[in-house]
């Protein structure tokens, strides 16, 4: 009876994941092996039954197409590159913020944490759109700089890769700050004192004690920023230029502009496989940490 209770509690999230993650994934996986056709739905069936003959049509052509057309490979590479450097930037910005919050006294700490999370209360889309207003040629920054005479001509910021980096770092910063903060706030102050006692200057103490001990928080933060950044669509679409190639944008175009569901599905599946690498790495690391 008790076992049944425990099982049913665990069953709820499992059923949820099964219904809303595994089933859609399998549908997308299925579509990626079909062929595009002008119908509703716009793809062929994998299995057909006619004249007492069971036909299975597995179209591997879509995947071959992804490899042959260099657009997709370039888009994947560029997405990973942008996500990687954006994650590094987010780490460089987020770590000091997390550190400062963790070192602040309890009263200010909560206020600072609130400030980190507060922007998330506004719609993601509106916040990214606001950056358009800030970055565009006659936007806040350019008008301001020209107004005080530092520059004569507007600096092109919108529709550049710089804007995409800025957008990703801005949007995903809380996901970097919070895990690192959670980690740093647990750091025992006597360890820092012990390090100082044994001859380490504050900087050396940071390098030899604080940083290694916050490794788990850094990895978690980086994963939380990197993984959604790779597939990011809104930021490159709104802030990036025509030459900013990201897989999220390609996916959107295949799906809504070309109406090629099989290719769009295959793009999504490959992206997922690509992201499995860092995720497995992360899990391995976590398991090892738990063991020791």
């Amino acid at each position, binding site marked *: 009876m008790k076992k049944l209770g425990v099982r049913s509690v665990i069953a709820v999230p499992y059923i949820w994941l099964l219904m809303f993650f595994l089933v859609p994934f399998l549908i997308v996986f299925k579509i990626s092996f079909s062929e595009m056709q002008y119908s509703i739905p716009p793809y062929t069936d994998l299995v057909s039954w006619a004249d007492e003959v069971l036909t299975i049509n597995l179209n591997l052509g879509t995947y071959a197409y992804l490899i042959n057309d260099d657009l997709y490979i370039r888009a994947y590479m560029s997405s990973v590159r942008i996500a990687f450097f954006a994650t590094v930037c987010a780490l460089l910005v987020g770590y000091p913020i997390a550190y400062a919050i963790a070192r602040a006294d309890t009263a200010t700490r909560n206020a600072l944490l609130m400030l980190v999370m507060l922007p998330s209360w506004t719609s993601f889309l509106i916040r990214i759109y606001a950056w358009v207003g800030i970055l565009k040629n006659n936007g806040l920054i350019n008008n301001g700089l020209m107004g005080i005479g530092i520059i004569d001509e507007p600096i092109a910021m919108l529709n550049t890769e710089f804007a995409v980096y800025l957008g990703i770092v801005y949007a995903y910063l809380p996901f970097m700050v919070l895990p690192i903060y959670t980690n740093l706030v647990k750091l025992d102050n006597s360890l820092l004192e012990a390090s*100082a*006692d044994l*001859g380490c200057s504050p900087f050396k103490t940071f390098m030899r004690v604080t940083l290694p001990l916050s490794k788990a928080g850094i990895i978690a933060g980086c994963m939380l920023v990197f993984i959604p950044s790779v597939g990011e669509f809104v930021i490159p679409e709104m802030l990036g230029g025509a030459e900013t190639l990201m897989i999220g944008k390609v996916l959107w175009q295949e799906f809504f502009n070309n109406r090629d569901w099989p290719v769009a599905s295959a793009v999504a599946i490959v992206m997922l496989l690509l992201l499995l690498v860092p995720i497995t790495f992360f899990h391995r690391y976590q398991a090892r940490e738990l063991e020791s």
Partner: protein
Amino acid sequence: MTDTASSPMLEIRHVTKRFGQLSAVKDVNLAINKGEIFALLGGSGCGKTTLLRIMAGFETPTEGAVLIDGQDVSNVPPYKRQVNMMFQSYALFPHLTVEQNVAFGLKQDKLPKVEIEAQVHNMLGLVHMNEFAKRKPNQLSGGQRQRVALARSLAKKPKVLLLDEPMGALDKKLRSQMQLEVVDIIESVGVTCVMVTHDQEEAMTMADRVSVMHDGEIMQIGTPSEIYEFPNSRHTAEFIGSVNIFDAAVQHVSPQLSQLSCADLACTLNVEGGINAIEGALVGVAVRPEKIIMSRQQPQQINNWAKGSVQDIAYLGGHSVYHVELDSGKVVMATTTNTDRHEQRLTWKDEVYLHWPASSAVVLCQ
């Protein structure tokens, strides 16, 4: 008492530490000799930990100076002081192995690798932890962690070793064993050591000299027996061990034998030696429970005795503590050793006489 031939290894001169309105340490002066084990003893909030942290450099004194080996280090940060501390929580680095923990400070000195390895091996040998060199701190027991912490704080050959509540995290049995072992290790290295503790037994077991602190001030400094046998204040007498204090008025002072009167006693109180108080002054007379003799017969002496009835008995195996209520209502503690198994011991409500020699009592002026 102090060695005047050599200058002290650690000197605290008129050190005061204020946190806002609160003074944690008030005008403390200390001179700790080379090779000495010195204990700062006091209850919680007495300022002993703040004083230790001032020695380590984690706090800077508001006033006064700290001198190590004759040099003023008041404004020297902890990482530049030749002082190492063993923390109460041990503060071992969880991400490093035992040997890496011990090597931590040595690496900072840019020593050659071979030398570091040799020193780590030495230190771990000293605390019998060589076989655990590759373990992480969370794979060690409390006692083992303490050994590693001690090895780590000794590895850099500090001029002064600081111990913050060294036995605080250990259980009682391990504690008494480690107390002696830590002292052996410290003495074999010959390092000057300052320890902080709230446990008087620990201070008396481990330290050569003890200073009793109360409310940010040092009440008394002396060897364990000096502090126990000749407390200079009510606070010290009550803090160290148990004591009976009779409120008394000075009647007659003489260098051989002074006389006092006490409302709780029918006779005069005699105390050996002179008293630093004028006649008529109100003082306390302290008598330790083990110095009081109990008997069923009225004692021969005419002074220093009392009559009462047994109110409570605490049988502690090796000895028993009797609480005897005097006619005035004052309760006096007396201890007897249980040497004879078949002895007819005093029991509740028994009428007893208490008496003690004049040499056992101490007059407390403050």
